[in-house]
């Protein structure tokens, strides 16, 4: 078996799609709407060159999947950056930081030296937490 897809909750799939493709430069791996599943939309993206792994940008479902209280909790936690996280790596963090910043990605933390390398952080429009790192050592 292999990991094919990891999940992030998003508030708005079109807004997420624009962010991941236009600002992060990721590619759409699938965008399928299934009428037999109540127009459920499976929307996945991943960096160029990584065709075998993707992030599904998942709309938060209401009834019958989640009751209203659960939906509210997911929205609250996602907005706080406490629901989902993805770790990206690069071989040149300063170059990527400048590129992403120029495309309008707002960084909560600029590149900084850490025990594991050089690291910066940003959020997607829904609040999901991203770390971009140039790693050293065992990480």
């Amino acid at each position, binding site marked *: *078996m*292999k*990991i*094919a*897809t*990891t*999940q992030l909750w998003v508030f708005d799939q079109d807004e997420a799609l624009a962010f991941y493709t236009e600002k*992060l*430069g990721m590619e*759409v*791996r*699938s*965008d*399928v*709407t*299934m009428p*037999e*599943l109540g127009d459920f939309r*499976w929307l996945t993206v*991943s*960096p*160029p*060159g*990584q065709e075998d*792994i993707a*992030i*599904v940008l*998942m709309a938060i479902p209401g009834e019958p999947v*989640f009751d209203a209280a*659960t939906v509210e*909790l*997911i929205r*609250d*936690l996602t907005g*706080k950056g*406490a*629901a*989902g*996280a*993805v*770790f*990206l*790596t*690069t071989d040149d963090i300063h170059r*990527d930081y400048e590129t992403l910043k120029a495309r309008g990605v707002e960084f909560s933390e600029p590149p900084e030296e850490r*025990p*594991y390398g050089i690291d910066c952080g940003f959020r997607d429009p829904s609040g999901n937490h991203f770390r*971009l*790192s140039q*790693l050293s050592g*065992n*990480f």
Partner: protein
Amino acid sequence: MHTLATAQLWVHDQDEALAFYRDKLGWTVRADVSPPELGGFRWLTVSPASQPDVAVVLMEIPGEPVFDAETKEQVQTLLAKGAVGALFLATPDVQAEYEALVGRGVEISEPPAERPWGIDTGFRDPSGNHIRLAQLVDIPVTA
């Protein structure tokens, strides 16, 4: 440009999660480090043997100063409901994987069933994270 290196799942107990992913799913430990500078933080990652370049970090839910008590409790609540983390696995032979997992004691809540996207099965990890394992049909980009 950047590479997707690690996906995150919250877990209630890292040792319990490690036992599940390593011993029941048969995954490989990619990193298990606790830098003293990071005050007991443990970076524990696992992935299938064939995927050395991608991993899942089994992340303990932090307390203060990262999360306040309310946030921590919210994460725990959602985690237990299976509503916070999800992972989608693919295999060329879902029936064989299903039998292997059942043989190792994984409780599969949804046995293999035909779906529009392939043959699909679902289970939870010990923390409640939702895992789907599917033998996929080719899904084209349609939009």
